[in-house]
């Protein structure tokens, strides 16, 4: 039978962000796929060499757009490790709060994305609409909706405003209530089950072989999480268990996020409870930003972003700017090679759905 070359993207509604996949299809089945990243390349790693240490977070938060806090925190942690500074206790909790809220908003984006890719636009509308409540909280805390530029090396920029914890809790209650409605419309929808169960199964052995991280790995039954394996911020003090699924199909990947969404809500509640009982004020420890020199050496710091392990390798030669900084985006494993291999044999209709179900984030491949 004749094989047809199809370009998915970059201008295509079935693509997350600006990305391209070239698939060869035979009838309705994909026989070959080639991921083409690079449409969002900005050369962060080069730009950072021309910036001061403190000018990092305003630039680096742009690495993964839906999940910006993890990007800036990862960088800040790497710099802290190099410089050997420790964030004050309250600073750590505020950091963890922004990270968990970032995860919540990224997961809402994920629900919307996967729903949209299989045609359920109502969930896309609902989830993005609900995400705006989280953005409002961010706006109150940091002054910005998307790029917060809040977590600097040394700690968050400032303390939470008065009564902020209560407002966070209120939004958490709302989200929990909405989650039940999502269950009815989305997670228990007959057609959704049909579209996602037994589609694009990822085995645990395959995930281990291809270094898949984050919720995608946990959906195969592999219990890994940077929050547990290499704890940072306030996570060592927080009480949570890793959630895993066994099937490793698209359904398991979506349900994994759905369960972790609930877990994140619980974590945020734990954090706000703790924040209320803490003395206010001391959140940040910061040297003179303009002439801050960091001793020679190298450090790696990783955070568990909503897509997997997001790591920063920072090399200093003792100067006022990084000598080299390299980002390990989570999607570099599951967005390129894993995606290319998993899509073969799937139906054409699942090309977009699989990309959304793996939560490929093109900017962190391209940087």
């Amino acid at each position, binding site marked *: 039978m004749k094989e*047809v070359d*199809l370009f998915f993207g970059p201008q295509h509604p079935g693509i997350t962000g600006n990305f391209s996949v070239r698939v060869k299809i035979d009838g309705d089945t994909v026989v070959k796929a080639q991921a083409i990243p690079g449409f969002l390349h900005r050369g962060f790693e080069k730009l950072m060499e021309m910036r001061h240490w403190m000018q990092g977070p305003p630039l680096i938060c742009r690495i993964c757009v839906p999940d910006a806090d993890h990007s800036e925190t990862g960088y800040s942690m790497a710099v802290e490790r190099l410089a050997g500074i420790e964030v004050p206790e309250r600073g750590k909790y505020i950091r963890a709060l922004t990270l968990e809220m970032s995860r919540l908003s990224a997961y809402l984006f994920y629900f919307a994305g996967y729903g949209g890719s299989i*045609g359920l636009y109502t969930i896309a509308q*609902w989830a993005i609409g609900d995400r705006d409540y989280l953005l409002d909280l961010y706006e109150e805390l940091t002054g910005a909706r998307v790029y917060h530029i809040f977590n600097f090396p040394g700690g968050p920029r400032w303390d939470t405003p008065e009564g902020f914890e209560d407002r966070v809790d209120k939004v958490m209650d709302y989200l929990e209530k909405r989650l039940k409605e999502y269950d009815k419309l989305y997670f228990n929808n007959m*057609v959704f089950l049909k579209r996602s169960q037994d589609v694009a199964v990822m085995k645990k052995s395959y995930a281990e072989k291809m270094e898949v991280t984050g919720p995608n790995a946990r959906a195969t039954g592999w219990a890994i999480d940077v929050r547990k394996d290499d704890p940072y911020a306030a996570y060592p003090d927080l009480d949570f268990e890793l959630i895993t699924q066994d099937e490793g199909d698209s359904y398991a990947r979506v349900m994994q996020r759905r369960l972790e969404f609930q877990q994140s809500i619980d974590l945020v509640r734990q954090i706000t409870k703790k924040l209320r009982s803490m003395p206010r004020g001391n959140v940040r420890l910061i040297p003179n930003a303009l002439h801050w020199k960091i001793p020679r050496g190298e450090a790696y710091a990783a955070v568990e972003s909503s897509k997997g392990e997001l790591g920063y390798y920072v090399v200093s030669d003792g100067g006022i700017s990084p000598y080299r900084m390299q980002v390990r985006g989570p999607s570099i494993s599951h967005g390129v090679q894993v995606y290319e291999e998993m899509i073969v044999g799937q139906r054409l*209709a699942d090309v977009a759905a699989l990309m959304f179900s793996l939560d490929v984030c093109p900017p962190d491949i391209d940087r």
Partner: protein
Amino acid sequence: MIAEILVLIFMPVFVSFMGLLFMGIQRKITARVQNRIGPPFYQQFIDVMKLFSKRENIGHNWVFDIGPIFAIVGMLTTMLFIPMGGFRLLSMDGDLIVVMYLLVISGLGMALGAGASGNPNAGIGVMRGLTLMMAYEMPFVISVLAVMVYYHTTSLAEIVGMQSGMWALIILPLSALVADMALQAQFGKKPFDQPIAPAEVATGPIVEYGGKYLGMLMVAHSIGMFVEAGLFIDIFLGGGLLFHQPGIIWQVFNFLFWVLLVFALYTLAVLVNAIMPRYRIDQAFVFYWKWPTIIAIIGLAYALGVSVW
């Protein structure tokens, strides 16, 4: 004679107008389901006006150009054979079978034009469209057959006339259920909108159509809505005839009721559309050839039994 010609001219204009209006209202309803305000109800008219005012700066070939015309003419021709709330334009013996054939023409014209555009997405969309047609025609034809068997006729006008006592929906509920399932795919609504799935084939057949062509296709779609819903109403809902007295005023009321029924059927489809994802094309095929077909066959057996007995 003059009255008939007037109706002939009036009908297409009225139907396209109402179709666009309904689509506008449905956009509003969908928006409400999605927690939004939605566009004004006359948005669809603005869209069509804008589309007809666009300039085409890309040419393909003449087959591509006649595609939308084919679609619109196919729909209009089909409309002529369908009794619309008492207005009958062309009717004869066996017109139900003619209509079943003509319904395909519009889609085929579309397929022809889209195929000529050379875009692989359009090609795949057409392929999906034809597969889907094959899938839903099976249970649909069986359930229509049940009606034909029950009323011993293949004339739409006679079927409508015989339902003056009781609607076929009540006599043959199983067949009506199956036909409504098929209607969902005929309207091109989720879960059966695979041919135009944006995230998969970038709106399929209409991927290359823009400007005036797209305007024409929107008009064709709004006529199609009345044709497809009208056929269902004629077969199962007594042709929307509420009053059986002669006289122009009752005829107008009947016609309005028919329009209302079209609106209701379309709203039902849109509400299902709003809360459903779409099947894959293979799943849609299996779906139609499994339960709806079985139910349709049971419905046919029931109709046979009732009419023989």
